[in-house]
Protein backbone atom coordinates (compact mmCIF):
# COMPACT_ATOMS: atom_id res chain seq x y z
CA UNK A 1 0.00 0.00 0.00
CA UNK A 2 2.87 2.30 0.70
CA UNK A 3 4.23 1.61 -2.70
CA UNK A 4 3.27 4.40 -5.01
CA UNK A 5 3.17 2.25 -8.11
CA UNK A 6 0.90 -0.51 -6.85
CA UNK A 7 -2.54 0.02 -8.35
CA UNK A 8 -5.63 0.00 -6.20
CA UNK A 9 -7.12 -3.50 -6.14
CA UNK A 10 -9.59 -4.14 -8.94
CA UNK A 11 -9.18 -0.78 -10.56
CA UNK A 12 -6.69 -1.93 -13.14
CA UNK A 13 -7.07 -5.58 -14.25
CA UNK A 14 -3.84 -7.09 -15.54
CA UNK A 15 -3.71 -7.36 -19.31
CA UNK A 16 -5.11 -10.67 -20.53
CA UNK A 17 -2.72 -12.82 -22.42
CA UNK A 18 -3.28 -15.81 -24.63
CA UNK A 19 -3.33 -18.99 -22.57
CA UNK A 20 -4.80 -17.32 -19.49
CA UNK A 21 -8.17 -18.96 -20.03
CA UNK A 22 -6.62 -22.40 -20.44
CA UNK A 23 -4.47 -21.87 -17.39
CA UNK A 24 -7.48 -20.78 -15.34
CA UNK A 25 -9.51 -23.77 -16.53
CA UNK A 26 -6.73 -26.25 -15.74
CA UNK A 27 -6.14 -24.69 -12.34
CA UNK A 28 -9.87 -24.81 -11.66
CA UNK A 29 -9.99 -28.54 -12.42
CA UNK A 30 -6.95 -29.13 -10.23
CA UNK A 31 -8.52 -27.25 -7.36
CA UNK A 32 -11.75 -29.21 -7.74
CA UNK A 33 -9.86 -32.50 -7.64
CA UNK A 34 -7.92 -31.43 -4.55
CA UNK A 35 -11.18 -30.36 -2.93
CA UNK A 36 -12.81 -33.70 -3.78
CA UNK A 37 -9.86 -35.48 -2.17
CA UNK A 38 -10.21 -33.43 0.99
CA UNK A 39 -13.95 -34.18 1.11
CA UNK A 40 -13.31 -37.92 0.78
CA UNK A 41 -10.69 -37.77 3.56
CA UNK A 42 -13.17 -35.90 5.72
CA UNK A 43 -15.75 -38.58 4.99
CA UNK A 44 -13.34 -41.27 6.20
CA UNK A 45 -12.84 -39.32 9.44
CA UNK A 46 -16.60 -38.98 9.71
CA UNK A 47 -17.16 -42.71 9.27
CA UNK A 48 -14.39 -43.80 11.59
CA UNK A 49 -14.62 -41.20 14.36
CA UNK A 50 -17.50 -38.74 14.17
CA UNK A 51 -20.20 -41.43 14.00
CA UNK A 52 -18.69 -42.88 17.20
CA UNK A 53 -19.67 -39.79 19.17
CA UNK A 54 -23.34 -39.83 18.32
CA UNK A 55 -23.50 -43.61 18.62
CA UNK A 56 -21.90 -43.48 22.07
CA UNK A 57 -24.64 -41.12 23.25
CA UNK A 58 -27.37 -43.32 21.75
CA UNK A 59 -25.81 -46.45 23.26
CA UNK A 60 -25.71 -44.80 26.71
CA UNK A 61 -29.37 -43.92 26.39
CA UNK A 62 -30.33 -47.44 25.25
CA UNK A 63 -28.39 -48.92 28.17
CA UNK A 64 -30.11 -46.62 30.64
CA UNK A 65 -33.51 -47.59 29.22
CA UNK A 66 -32.68 -51.30 29.38
CA UNK A 67 -31.51 -51.03 32.98
CA UNK A 68 -34.65 -49.12 33.84
CA UNK A 69 -36.80 -51.79 32.18
CA UNK A 70 -34.93 -54.47 34.15
CA UNK A 71 -35.57 -52.64 37.43
CA UNK A 72 -39.25 -52.10 36.67
CA UNK A 73 -40.42 -55.13 34.72
CA UNK A 74 -43.67 -54.57 32.91
CA UNK A 75 -44.66 -58.20 32.74
CA UNK A 76 -43.43 -60.80 30.30
CA UNK A 77 -42.88 -59.73 26.70
CA UNK A 78 -43.31 -62.45 24.08
CA UNK A 79 -41.64 -60.44 21.34
CA UNK A 80 -39.17 -57.61 21.94
CA UNK A 81 -39.95 -54.28 20.30
CA UNK A 82 -37.72 -53.33 17.39
CA UNK A 83 -35.06 -50.87 18.45
CA UNK A 84 -35.39 -51.64 22.16
CA UNK A 85 -32.53 -53.07 24.19
CA UNK A 86 -32.86 -56.80 24.87
CA UNK A 87 -29.58 -57.80 26.51
CA UNK A 88 -26.06 -56.74 27.37
CA UNK A 89 -23.12 -58.39 25.70
CA UNK A 90 -19.67 -58.69 27.28
CA UNK A 91 -16.56 -59.97 25.54
CA UNK A 92 -13.92 -60.13 28.29
CA UNK A 93 -11.03 -60.77 25.90
CA UNK A 94 -11.71 -57.33 24.41
CA UNK A 95 -11.23 -55.80 27.86
CA UNK A 96 -13.24 -55.68 31.05
CA UNK A 97 -14.94 -52.50 29.84
CA UNK A 98 -16.29 -54.12 26.68
CA UNK A 99 -20.04 -54.10 27.12
CA UNK A 100 -22.74 -53.21 24.62
CA UNK A 101 -26.48 -53.16 24.88
CA UNK A 102 -27.86 -55.39 22.13
CA UNK A 103 -31.00 -54.07 20.50
CA UNK A 104 -33.80 -55.85 18.69
CA UNK A 105 -33.55 -55.65 14.90
CA UNK A 106 -30.82 -55.06 12.36
CA UNK A 107 -32.03 -51.90 10.61
CA UNK A 108 -29.49 -49.14 9.99
CA UNK A 109 -30.96 -46.91 12.68
CA UNK A 110 -30.82 -49.71 15.22
CA UNK A 111 -27.25 -50.68 14.34
CA UNK A 112 -26.21 -47.06 14.79
CA UNK A 113 -27.08 -47.49 18.48
CA UNK A 114 -25.40 -50.83 19.07
CA UNK A 115 -25.26 -54.46 18.00
CA UNK A 116 -28.61 -55.68 16.69
CA UNK A 117 -30.37 -59.00 17.18
CA UNK A 118 -31.60 -60.58 13.94
CA UNK A 119 -35.36 -60.67 14.38
CA UNK A 120 -36.78 -64.16 14.36
CA UNK A 121 -33.59 -65.84 15.53
CA UNK A 122 -33.39 -67.36 19.00
CA UNK A 123 -33.23 -65.16 22.09
CA UNK A 124 -30.27 -65.46 24.47
CA UNK A 125 -30.01 -68.93 25.95
CA UNK A 126 -32.81 -70.41 23.84
CA UNK A 127 -32.20 -73.43 21.65
CA UNK A 128 -31.31 -72.20 18.18
CA UNK A 129 -29.06 -69.41 17.07
CA UNK A 130 -28.89 -66.07 18.90
CA UNK A 131 -27.65 -64.02 15.93
CA UNK A 132 -26.30 -60.49 16.34
CA UNK A 133 -24.95 -58.01 13.77
CA UNK A 134 -22.64 -55.12 14.62
CA UNK A 135 -20.57 -52.43 12.98
CA UNK A 136 -16.88 -52.99 12.52
CA UNK A 137 -15.89 -49.42 11.62
CA UNK A 138 -17.57 -46.37 13.13
CA UNK A 139 -20.92 -46.20 14.97
CA UNK A 140 -19.15 -47.28 18.15
CA UNK A 141 -17.59 -50.16 16.16
CA UNK A 142 -18.70 -52.85 18.63
CA UNK A 143 -17.35 -55.64 16.42
CA UNK A 144 -14.14 -53.86 15.40
CA UNK A 145 -11.90 -56.67 16.65
CA UNK A 146 -14.11 -59.65 15.92
CA UNK A 147 -11.34 -61.13 13.76
CA UNK A 148 -9.09 -61.28 16.86
CA UNK A 149 -11.40 -63.62 18.78
CA UNK A 150 -9.86 -67.03 19.44
CA UNK A 151 -11.64 -70.28 20.04
CA UNK A 152 -12.94 -70.64 23.62
CA UNK A 153 -13.10 -66.86 24.13
CA UNK A 154 -16.16 -66.04 26.19
CA UNK A 155 -19.12 -64.02 24.92
CA UNK A 156 -21.26 -63.31 27.97
CA UNK A 157 -24.87 -62.23 27.52
CA UNK A 158 -26.85 -60.72 30.37
CA UNK A 159 -30.63 -60.67 30.26
CA UNK A 160 -33.13 -59.50 32.85
CA UNK A 161 -32.94 -62.76 34.78
CA UNK A 162 -29.87 -64.68 33.71
CA UNK A 163 -26.27 -64.71 32.56
CA UNK A 164 -25.47 -66.82 29.51
CA UNK A 165 -21.89 -67.76 28.75
CA UNK A 166 -21.14 -68.64 25.16
CA UNK A 167 -17.69 -69.61 23.94
CA UNK A 168 -16.25 -69.38 20.43
CA UNK A 169 -16.17 -72.77 18.70
CA UNK A 170 -12.91 -74.35 17.48
CA UNK A 171 -11.54 -72.85 14.32
CA UNK A 172 -11.44 -75.03 11.24
CA UNK A 173 -7.70 -75.72 11.44
CA UNK A 174 -7.92 -76.50 15.19
CA UNK A 175 -10.72 -79.05 14.92
CA UNK A 176 -8.52 -81.94 13.76
CA UNK A 177 -6.17 -81.88 16.71
CA UNK A 178 -8.58 -80.47 19.25
CA UNK A 179 -8.42 -83.23 21.89
CA UNK A 180 -4.66 -83.00 22.19
CA UNK A 181 -4.47 -79.28 21.54
CA UNK A 182 -6.65 -76.60 22.99
CA UNK A 183 -9.12 -78.91 24.71
CA UNK A 184 -6.68 -79.24 27.62
CA UNK A 185 -6.95 -75.55 28.45
CA UNK A 186 -9.39 -74.71 31.25
CA UNK A 187 -11.34 -72.06 29.33
CA UNK A 188 -12.19 -74.66 26.67
CA UNK A 189 -14.29 -76.78 29.02
CA UNK A 190 -17.48 -77.61 27.16
CA UNK A 191 -16.13 -76.48 23.81
CA UNK A 192 -15.22 -78.90 21.06
CA UNK A 193 -15.69 -79.60 17.38
CA UNK A 194 -19.37 -80.16 16.67
CA UNK A 195 -20.67 -83.27 14.96
CA UNK A 196 -23.71 -84.43 13.03
CA UNK A 197 -25.88 -81.65 11.68
CA UNK A 198 -23.42 -79.15 13.11
CA UNK A 199 -20.25 -80.67 11.67
CA UNK A 200 -19.65 -77.68 9.39
CA UNK A 201 -20.06 -75.05 12.10
CA UNK A 202 -16.70 -73.64 13.14
CA UNK A 203 -15.63 -70.68 15.24
CA UNK A 204 -14.87 -68.23 12.49
CA UNK A 205 -15.80 -68.04 8.81
CA UNK A 206 -15.85 -65.47 6.06
CA UNK A 207 -18.89 -65.67 3.82
CA UNK A 208 -20.57 -63.71 1.07
CA UNK A 209 -23.22 -61.15 2.05
CA UNK A 210 -26.04 -63.27 0.61
CA UNK A 211 -25.27 -66.33 2.75
CA UNK A 212 -28.10 -65.91 5.23
CA UNK A 213 -27.85 -69.56 6.27
CA UNK A 214 -25.09 -68.67 8.75
CA UNK A 215 -27.74 -67.26 11.07
CA UNK A 216 -30.09 -70.23 10.68
CA UNK A 217 -30.95 -72.21 13.81
CA UNK A 218 -28.53 -74.85 12.55
CA UNK A 219 -25.95 -72.65 10.82
CA UNK A 220 -25.49 -73.57 7.19
CA UNK A 221 -28.81 -75.40 7.03
CA UNK A 222 -31.80 -73.18 6.50
CA UNK A 223 -34.86 -74.70 8.06
CA UNK A 224 -37.32 -74.53 10.88
CA UNK A 225 -35.85 -74.22 14.36
CA UNK A 226 -36.57 -77.13 16.66
CA UNK A 227 -36.54 -77.68 20.38
CA UNK A 228 -33.62 -80.10 20.04
CA UNK A 229 -31.36 -77.48 18.46
CA UNK A 230 -28.21 -76.52 20.29
CA UNK A 231 -28.02 -73.06 21.82
CA UNK A 232 -25.55 -71.14 19.67
CA UNK A 233 -24.55 -67.52 19.23
CA UNK A 234 -23.58 -65.98 15.88
CA UNK A 235 -21.95 -62.57 15.44
CA UNK A 236 -21.78 -60.97 12.00
CA UNK A 237 -19.92 -57.91 10.77
CA UNK A 238 -18.45 -56.58 7.54
CA UNK A 239 -15.23 -57.91 6.08
CA UNK A 240 -12.66 -56.67 5.23
CA UNK A 241 -13.03 -53.50 7.32
CA UNK A 242 -14.34 -50.52 5.30
CA UNK A 243 -15.78 -52.93 2.76
CA UNK A 244 -19.06 -54.68 2.12
CA UNK A 245 -17.57 -57.42 -0.02
CA UNK A 246 -17.84 -60.18 2.55
CA UNK A 247 -19.04 -60.88 6.07
CA UNK A 248 -17.02 -62.08 9.02
CA UNK A 249 -18.96 -64.66 11.04
CA UNK A 250 -18.19 -65.90 14.54
CA UNK A 251 -20.07 -68.88 15.99
CA UNK A 252 -20.14 -69.76 19.66
CA UNK A 253 -21.85 -72.33 21.82
CA UNK A 254 -23.65 -71.96 25.14
CA UNK A 255 -21.50 -73.55 27.84
CA UNK A 256 -22.99 -72.17 31.05
CA UNK A 257 -25.81 -70.09 32.46
CA UNK A 258 -26.39 -68.60 35.86
CA UNK A 259 -29.25 -67.07 37.74
CA UNK A 260 -28.56 -63.40 38.36
CA UNK A 261 -27.67 -62.53 41.93
CA UNK A 262 -27.58 -58.86 42.82
CA UNK A 263 -24.06 -57.49 42.95
CA UNK A 264 -22.46 -60.63 41.54
CA UNK A 265 -20.94 -61.21 38.15
CA UNK A 266 -20.08 -64.56 36.61
CA UNK A 267 -16.49 -65.72 36.98
CA UNK A 268 -16.08 -65.57 33.20
CA UNK A 269 -16.20 -61.78 33.40
CA UNK A 270 -13.49 -61.63 36.04
CA UNK A 271 -10.85 -63.87 34.49
CA UNK A 272 -9.72 -62.96 31.03
CA UNK A 273 -8.28 -65.81 29.04
CA UNK A 274 -5.01 -65.06 27.34
Amino acid at each position, binding site marked *: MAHALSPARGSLPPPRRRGDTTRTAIRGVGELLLTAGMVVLLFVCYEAYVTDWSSAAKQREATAQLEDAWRNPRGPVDRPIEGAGIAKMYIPSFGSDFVFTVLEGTGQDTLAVGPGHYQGTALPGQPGNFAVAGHRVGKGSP*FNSLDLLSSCDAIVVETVERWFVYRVLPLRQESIDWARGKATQPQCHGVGPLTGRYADVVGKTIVLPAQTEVIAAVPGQPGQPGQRDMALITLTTCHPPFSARQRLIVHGILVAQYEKIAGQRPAELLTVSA
Partner: protein
Amino acid sequence: MYSWIWQHLPGSRAMRVLQTLILVATVVTLLLLVVFPWVEPRLPFNEVTTG
Protein backbone atom coordinates in the same frame (compact mmCIF):
# COMPACT_ATOMS: atom_id res chain seq x y z
CA MET B 1 -11.59 -20.86 -7.87
CA TYR B 2 -9.90 -20.28 -4.53
CA SER B 3 -8.00 -17.23 -5.78
CA TRP B 4 -11.27 -15.85 -7.15
CA ILE B 5 -12.93 -16.27 -3.76
CA TRP B 6 -9.92 -14.71 -2.03
CA GLN B 7 -10.01 -11.68 -4.34
CA HIS B 8 -13.71 -11.15 -3.74
CA LEU B 9 -13.53 -11.23 0.04
CA PRO B 10 -13.73 -7.70 1.40
CA GLY B 11 -11.52 -6.12 4.04
CA SER B 12 -7.91 -6.32 5.08
CA ARG B 13 -5.78 -9.46 4.94
CA ALA B 14 -6.62 -10.33 8.54
CA MET B 15 -10.33 -9.96 7.83
CA ARG B 16 -10.02 -12.15 4.76
CA VAL B 17 -8.21 -14.86 6.74
CA LEU B 18 -10.99 -14.75 9.32
CA GLN B 19 -13.67 -14.99 6.63
CA THR B 20 -11.83 -17.86 4.99
CA LEU B 21 -11.77 -19.76 8.28
CA ILE B 22 -15.49 -19.15 8.76
CA LEU B 23 -16.22 -20.35 5.22
CA VAL B 24 -14.16 -23.51 5.69
CA ALA B 25 -15.83 -24.20 9.05
CA THR B 26 -19.26 -23.73 7.48
CA VAL B 27 -18.51 -26.14 4.65
CA VAL B 28 -17.07 -28.77 7.02
CA THR B 29 -20.06 -28.45 9.36
CA LEU B 30 -22.50 -28.78 6.48
CA LEU B 31 -20.66 -31.85 5.22
CA LEU B 32 -20.51 -33.51 8.64
CA LEU B 33 -24.03 -32.73 9.79
CA VAL B 34 -26.05 -32.76 6.58
CA VAL B 35 -24.32 -34.23 3.57
CA PHE B 36 -22.50 -37.22 5.11
CA PRO B 37 -25.43 -38.45 7.22
CA TRP B 38 -27.56 -38.26 4.08
CA VAL B 39 -25.14 -39.96 1.75
CA GLU B 40 -23.95 -42.64 4.15
CA PRO B 41 -26.94 -45.01 4.06
CA ARG B 42 -26.71 -44.92 0.28
CA LEU B 43 -23.17 -46.27 0.31
CA PRO B 44 -22.44 -49.95 0.86
CA PHE B 45 -19.50 -49.65 3.30
CA ASN B 46 -21.46 -50.34 6.41
CA GLU B 47 -23.49 -53.41 5.67
CA VAL B 48 -22.83 -55.81 8.47
CA THR B 49 -25.78 -58.14 8.14
CA THR B 50 -26.22 -61.16 5.93
CA GLY B 51 -29.06 -61.19 3.46
